[in-house]
Structure formats: structure tokens, C-alpha cells
């Protein structure tokens, strides 16, 4: 029930859209989002799109994860 998944929007209607994950298509209400376009990634929870994923923020998160300050600090001390 609480399982939300990032799905790719493939069709957009007035109140709902069709979104896809791993080849499975489901319709989702889009009344809680501002603007939805084909190709967007949305988080779908119990048939409602609750959030749009932001690609720039996702890249930024991965960058922050790769940039592991403490580990590097330790390496500096060793060398």
C-alpha cells in the first residue's frame, strides 16, 4: 500500500496520465501536480502522482554520495 515507485509518463490526459515501470503500465491521477509531460518521471502512490522527480537533484545526490569527505580524510592521514 505504501509502495510508491518512480514511473515514466507515457500519456497525459486531463485528470490522469498513463505511466510505466518495467513494462507495466498504470493510470495515475495527476490532480496533485502542476504540470506533467510525456517523459517526466513521477512518484506514484496508490494511484496518485504525489511528486515529480527532479533529474538535476538526482544527479546532485549521486555526486554528493560519491564525494565522501570522511573516507578521503582518512586516506590522507594514512598516506
Amino acid at each position: 500500500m505504501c509502495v510508491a515507485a518512480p514511473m515514466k509518463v507515457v500519456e497525459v490526459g486531463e485528470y490522469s496520465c498513463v505511466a510505466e515501470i518495467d513494462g507495466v503500465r498504470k493510470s495515475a491521477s495527476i490532480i496533485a501536480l502542476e504540470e506533467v509531460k510525456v517523459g517526466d518521471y513521477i512518484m506514484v502512490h496508490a494511484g496518485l502522482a504525489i511528486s515529480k522527480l527532479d533529474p538535476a537533484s538526482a544527479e546532485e545526490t549521486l555526486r554528493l554520495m560519491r564525494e565522501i569527505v570522511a573516507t578521503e580524510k582518512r586516506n590522507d592521514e594514512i598516506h
Partner: protein
Amino acid sequence: MKYIDEFRDGALARKLVADLEIEAERLSRRVTLMEVCGTHTMAIYRHGLKPLFPEKVRLVSGPGCPVCVTPAGYVDMAITLARTPGVIITTFGDMLKVPGSQTSLVKERGAGRDVRVVYSPMDAVETAKSSPDKEVVFLGVGFETTAPSVAAAILTAKREGVKNFTVLASHKVMPEPMEALTKGELKIDGYICPAHVSAIIGERGYRRLAEVYGVPCVITGFEPLDMLRGVIMLVRQIAEGRAVVENEYFRVVKPEGNVKAQAILADVFEKSNAVWRGLGPIPDSGLAISPRYESYDAMKKFKLSEPDVRENPACLCGEILKGLKEPLDCGLFATACTPENPVGACMVSSEGTCAAEFRYGERSRANA
């Protein structure tokens, strides 16, 4: 970018674990972090994260599964409705096995009542449209994440003039029980805040916890890398003596949350007192259907009131939901209480703490 695989990278996970170990060395004592969300609990077990945490970091599960905290009295009301001629009950699948005081919905269905599992509350509206001579009741449980989809279904029913659709609402909100837990017996040093509840309510909901109670909060995604990074951020705050709300999951959670969803919630629901299975009554922790939408309120339409039901005294769910006990402390665990035949609610839903322990516990202990 598929937003999943990238956040499960094993090499990166190992680096994050190393980083966590270094951060944890700065702690002057062992700390207790609580993940309040059932989906986090499940992710921790499924990805075998628990054994990776350093000695000084203890993780406990909180009350973050709406199914787990649904009181038996609510289930009894749903069963009363299921037994009412002409009523179709529609629900998320995880509600079926929740024990009421006498029986459960799955047993009622076995006895011939019309109980149907739907994927979304919108599907329940469709059921109502295709069965105009029946009354279709949707069992509305869930936190701020799920409540908007139920509100959206009510708005759809209104827009389309569907008159035979109602919701038996038992929605709950997260910040209030977190505050109640903070004042409780267990000293919680930091919160891993629920990911998708936060997508709706934003960072604001946890501010009081940080500012008034001095408990660090980090909103964290559900992928293993997110969880590791969220724990690092929490440990860092504790080590530095800070307490603020940080957002690790900003690719999904905006600081202000989902303002449109908040407006839909405020339109359809109003704050109410609610009873949490295991935790008891918590003021302002529930969402009841607003009088503006009372024709969609099953409580009103069928003149129901929630009975006060005593829970099985041997079940430790309450202590588990407060982070005071663990599944293995319960004498019923894996004997009288199993996922097939749950006694307490923590065993019902796949993300309940006892169910996660039952399914993955041995493996994660073997890895330890």
C-alpha cells in the same frame, strides 16, 4: 537515469558504510535512531543493512505502518459493513488479514461477503460506477501519503455525481505520534523521517521536533544508498551537537512539500483525534472527513461508531511500535503469530516490524 538502479550501487554502498564508520567514531556514546516508516523498515531488512551499521548506531523501528496502527475497533466496523446486505467493501490488500476483535476481512470474504482488493481508491469509484445498485465502501487507511489519493477519489466521485461511494476513514498523520514518542520512555537521538509522507508535507512538519525537542531529523529516500547517507547525516548532526531538519531526498521531496496535495487534504479532511493500535489515543493525529463531504463518509451514512476493543495482552506490538521491544522479545513470535495467522498487526503487513523480522531476520542475523 531510472532513479532506482543508480541508488543501489554496491561499490558506492561500501564507501558509504566506511564513511558511516568514521562518522560514528566521533560519537561519545551509543545512539538510537528511529525509522518511523514501514517502508524504511522493510528496506533495511531487504537490503541487509542492519549488520552494516557500526556498534554505536542502533536502529529501531517506529509506528510507520498504517496497517499496523489500525485499531481492531476499526476492523470491526469494516466487518459490520461487510455483513450489511448490498455493501461491497473495497480495500488495499494489506488490510485483509488485520485481526479485528473476532474475525478478519479475509475470513469474512471466505464466508461469502463481497470484499474486493483494489490498487487505488480511484478503482473503488469505478467499482461504484459499475455497481449502481450497491453501496461501495472504501477502507481509507494510510498517512499523509495515502490520504490525498483518497481525497482525490472523493473529489472524483463528487465531480462525476457518484452517490453510492463512501469512505470509512481512519487516516493518520505522522508528526504528532513522532512528538508523542519523543516524550516517551525511549530516548530517540534522531529520526529517519518518512520519504513519501514528506513528499506531501515537506520539511515543515518536523521542525518542532528539531527546534523544541532538539531531535535531529533527516528526510531519507528508500534506496539503500539513500538510507546509508541519511544515517550518516543524522550521526553527523548528533556528533556536532546540532538538531535541524535535513533533506537527503530532495530529488523527490520539495522543502514546502506538495502544496496542491496539501490543499486537497485541507479541503476534504479535517484534523481529528485518533487511536493508534499500540500507542493509544493521540490528539490531532487523525484525519476525519470534513462535514462538507459528509455524504461520502461511511461513518455518517451507516451511522457507525468505533467500538473500544482490548488487544491481545500477550502481543507486544505496542512496545514494538514505540521502539521499546523487538519482535524476538515477543513470546508469540513465529509460534502463535505468523504472517499466515497474525495475532498482532506488526505481523500483518509485509512492512510491519514482526513480518520483516520473520521474513528476513534470520538472514540478516546470519550476516551479522
